[in-house]
């Protein structure tokens, strides 16, 4: 397991509190972990991901509205996987649409730490 020196400053630096990474919602940490695991598996060079991330952050800032770093992160990851033919955008959207149709109460995994 290779640990990467994540950016501390600049557009590609993830949100932190007192130096520690912060995830505002579970999906943010999943998106983070996906990029780390795929890079570890040799699917892409970190610098290629970082370049896509910086581009996605620039697009989001130009578009205005509420900024979400991990939206940009997911966008960068999808762009990279789409262009390399690993997972195209249409299949992600298709699967997401299927997931949206699940019955209420079964809309997420149950191995995390909040009760319901």
């Amino acid at each position, binding site marked *: 397991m290779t640990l990467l020196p994540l950016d501390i400053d600049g557009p590609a630096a993830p949100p932190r509190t007192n*130096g520690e990474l912060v995830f505002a919602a579970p999906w943010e*940490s999943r998106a*983070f972990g996906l990029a780390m695991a*795929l890079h*570890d598996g040799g699917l892409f060079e970190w610098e290629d991901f970082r370049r896509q991330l910086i581009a996605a952050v620039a697009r989001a800032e130009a578009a205005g509205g509420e900024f979400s770093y991990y939206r940009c992160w*997911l966008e960068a990851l999808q762009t990279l996987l789409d262009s390399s033919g690993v997972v195209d955008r249409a299949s992600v*959207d298709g699967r997401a649409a299927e997931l949206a149709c699940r019955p209420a109460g079964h809309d997420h995994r149950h191995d995390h730490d909040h009760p319901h």
Partner: protein
Amino acid sequence: MSPIPAPSDQPVELRTEALEALLVEKGLVDPAVLDKFIKTYAEDVGPLNGAKVVAKAWTDPDYRARLLEDGTAAIAELGFKGPQGECIIVLENTPTLHHLVVCTLCSCYPWPVLGLPPSWYKDPAYRARAVREPRALLEEFGLALGPEVEIKVYDSSSEVRYMVLPERPAGTEGLSEEELVPLVTREAMTGVAKAKSPA
């Protein structure tokens, strides 16, 4: 450069879940490995490592002696080392001697034990004032030291990183090593605060 993608109308939570599911099905991602990455970055590469070192030093005199003798080796005993932690010197605070760590050149930081540096550590004003007027700076951090306490400022470099061993707080005599860990903050290990008192 790829063309600008068309925005998806699927919620980001579901897209993330869908992407993970597809990658797992293709055998490209193992959910357990994913969990491990998240945990490592969010929790393990943080001040918790340093806090464990300090708590052990407070409860194990032999370890404390080894830590002050050769910080790098003693920290490695607990399994903590990394790309920026090659040489770590541990500075022991006492009732009459207080250490403050700074990096005047950049923001060198012992991240295998302290995690990623907090933003104030990289602030040019902090770096300059830590050397020029450490006592006033510490007061702004809420740490007023009496005139009997000598303050020594250590400047980190790319070769040597410093970590402060804070004093064990009063009233913690009955606490175990595990119970002491949460009292040790990142601030205490850089010398801008003391270790917390038990609640």
